[in-house]
């Protein structure tokens, strides 16, 4: 058993490989965007923005691959769920790439350097989100439902931190109304990270669905 | 059937009767063909001859007298059996092909007229009455004799092209009258036997031999040559001395002179045949000829050498 369908399994492997690559690319973009924001390094930020095109292209390639696998191999049951999950994950990863790009843009738009405390808060959130991203891709590949659920749980931390961050920020603005633009950008920045956490949660839901064929709400 | 002559013994057994043991070993073929009537005698002779000269291969075919003469006059056979004399056209053919031959009478065939054992009214018939029956003039028994029952006559006889048929027609009906075709014919006399024995109102004729074998089923009919004369039953004696008339006839074998001269095995066989014919004829249901006639044959053969 299980020895058949070499070409389909080869297709699945290729798909996973590309998803992994895409995940890595997104992580990298995120790293760089964060760095650009911290260092206020516009060149690095621009690099992230430039590379988003590549991530978008990868999304298209993966979509194409999925469509071909469906057209050529008629997957059913888990095979089909796996492929649909790949499709969804792909969309989510692409959005995450966009968010990295947004973060880079935000960092460019910021006229003033934010306070250290804020930066630390952001970095804290970012660190959690990054592990989440990294882990969820592994969970997908290993079809590890438990890991996926655990990862989704971390999103709560992210949300909590985000709220604290926002409150902090509002307090700031009230004190420095002139910095409103920068501070609004910072709010957006936080929101981007919060959204990243949401996307990971989405992916976690799909992983559960893929394995158990059950819809779950991990939010 | 008799068991008198232990012919064709199994090869392993020493021959019981070996008078010609010192005779030279001959080999070669003797090809005989022709009449089916003569066949049984010729077959018996060939069978006997095998114990004398086992290496001589005698074959006896049954093409009928006419068919036999066709081959004989073309030089294809050494001897030809015949239930009649050779005819004009056949003679001409022989002449044309340069075939010379001699005719040897071998035996008599006495035709027996029979009725079924169930038939309690026919004991004897005259030639005239037979004629009436076989020309189809009388189709019912009471048309033959008043006292016979009013019943259809059922006729059985040998095939129309056999020598026996020819002879019967010639002897009883004659050249100018016609035999009725309304009889059941068979080349196999046994079938005639069965046919007539099963039919109370049947009547048949065939070779004497067949009556002998089936006398428990059949009644022999005595024949009177003329109305009112004494009716005579065919027996060895009456046939042999010619008192059973007109239904006894000679049967013949024709020998090719050239074959005879050139082939020692044919000479040997011819002498053997002449010597044994009488004895074997009796065994197979024919009547032997007076001894003188076999002597004459022998002389004739001697003259050919």
């Amino acid at each position, binding site marked *: 058993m299980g020895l058949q369908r070499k070409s389909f399994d080869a297709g699945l492997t290729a798909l996973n490989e590309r998803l992994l690559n895409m995940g890595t690319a997104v992580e990298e973009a995120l790293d760089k965007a964060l760095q650009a924001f911290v260092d206020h390094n516009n060149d690095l930020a621009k690099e992230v923005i430039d590379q988003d095109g590549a991530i978008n292209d990868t999304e298209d390639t993966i979509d194409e691959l999925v469509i071909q696998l469906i057209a050529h191999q008629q997957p059913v049951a888990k095979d089909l769920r796996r492929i649909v999950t790949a499709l969804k994950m792909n969309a989510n990863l692409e959005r995450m790439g966009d968010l990295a790009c947004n973060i880079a843009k935000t960092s460019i738009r910021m006229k003033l350097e934010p306070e250290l405390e804020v930066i630390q808060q952001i970095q804290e959130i970012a660190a959690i989100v990054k592990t989440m991203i990294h882990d969820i891709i592994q969970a997908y590949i290993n079809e590890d439902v438990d890991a996926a659920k655990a990862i989704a749980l971390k999103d709560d931390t992210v949300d909590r931190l985000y709220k604290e961050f926002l409150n902090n920020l509002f307090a700031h603005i009230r004190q420095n109304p002139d910095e409103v633009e920068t501070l609004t950008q910072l709010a957006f920045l936080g929101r981007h990270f919060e959204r990243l956490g949401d996307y990971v949660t989405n992916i976690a839901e799909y992983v559960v669905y893929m394995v158990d064929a059950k819809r779950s709400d991990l939010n | 059937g008799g068991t008198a002559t232990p*012919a064709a013994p*199994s090869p392993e057994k020493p021959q019981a009767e070996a008078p010609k043991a010192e005779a030279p070993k001959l080999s070669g073929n003797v*090809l005989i063909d022709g009449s089916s009537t003569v066949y049984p005698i010729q077959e018996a002779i060939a*069978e006997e001859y095998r114990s004398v000269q086992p290496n001589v291969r005698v*074959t006896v*075919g049954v*093409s009928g007298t006419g*068919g036999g003469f066709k081959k004989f006059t073309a030089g294809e056979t050494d001897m030809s059996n015949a239930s009649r004399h050779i005819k004009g056209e056949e003679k001409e053919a022989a002449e044309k092909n340069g075939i010379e031959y001699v005719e040897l009478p071998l035996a008599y065939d006495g035709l027996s007229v029979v009725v079924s054992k169930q038939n309690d009214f026919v004991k004897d018939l005259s030639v005239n009455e037979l004629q009436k029956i076989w020309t189809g003039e009388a189709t019912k028994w009471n048309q033959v004799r008043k006292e016979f029952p009013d019943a259809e006559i059922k006729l059985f006889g040998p095939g129309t092209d056999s020598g026996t048929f020819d002879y019967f027609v010639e002897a009883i009906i004659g050249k100018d009258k016609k035999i009725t075709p309304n009889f059941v014919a068979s080349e*196999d*006399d046994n079938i005639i036997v069965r046919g007539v024995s099963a039919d109370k109102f049947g009547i048949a004729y065939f070779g004497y031999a067949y009556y002998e074998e089936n006398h428990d089923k059949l009644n022999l009919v005595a024949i009177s040559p003329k109305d009112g004369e004494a009716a005579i039953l065919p027996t060895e004696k009456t046939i042999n001395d010619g008192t059973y008339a007109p239904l006894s006839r000679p049967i013949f074998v024709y020998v090719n002179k050239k074959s005879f001269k050139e082939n020692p095995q044919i000479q040997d066989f011819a002498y053997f045949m002449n010597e044994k014919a009488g004895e074997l004829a009796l065994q197979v249901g024919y009547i032997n000829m007076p001894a003188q006639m076999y002597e004459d044959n022998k002389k004739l053969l001697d003259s050919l050498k």
Partner: protein
Amino acid sequence: MKSLIVRRTYYDRMWQGLFLLSTSVGVIALILLVSEIWSEGSGWLTWDFFNNFASRFPEKSGIKAALWGTLWMIGFTIPIAFIIGVSTAFYLEEYAKKNVITRFIQINITNLAGVPSIVFGILGLTLFVRAMDLGRSILAGSFTMALLVLPIVIVASQEAIRAVPADLRHASYAVGGTKWQTIRRILFPAAFPGILTGIILATSRAIGETAPLIMIGALTFVAFTPTSAMDSFTVMPIQIFNWISRPQADFQHVAAAGIIVLLVMLVSLNSLAIYLRNKLSTKR
């Protein structure tokens, strides 16, 4: 509806009975025939019977000459029929274009199958005995018989060849096999059981036939076993026919014994054919 079904089932039963009866007629006829013959002839089946030539004495009569004559005749008939029949079958099935000549040949063959044997006798008499001057030899008889059974062999072989799936043929061509290689290596072996069945049926026909040999004059006293194809001969049915027409009642028993031998021979050949048909051809 219900009662209709009962009625239909009843009819079915009734017909089944009738059909079974029909089948038994044949079987009963065979049993009667065989038991009749067996009771007449079984006592006469001795060693001598096989080892003696024909004799005017029933108890000395044997079937030796006829048996050997039959074997000799068959020995020539079958190879001739086989070679001509199988060749013709392969020509028609594999080489012949579907044209007028082919159709003509084919119709001829089917028709020959229906020509009465006696007509073959007339042909044999005229052609082999007289025109070719073979006389009443084994060869003349074999030729006549070969022609008689030829249609059987051809038709059976054709059927057998046709029954070889076309895809085997194609498979051979597709690896570069020539037509002849395909015939020799694929079609012939695959069709062989069928051809063999045809041959065996032809053999039993040839063994049992009387009429054509009577025509060509094989009814002969022969007191030797043939040593060459040009020898005179007699065959079993003719010998039996001869015996049957003897006046002595005992010859009827001899004849019955001869019939038993003939039947045993035929039944074994038929069984062989059936065995081959069932065995060899179910391989696929």
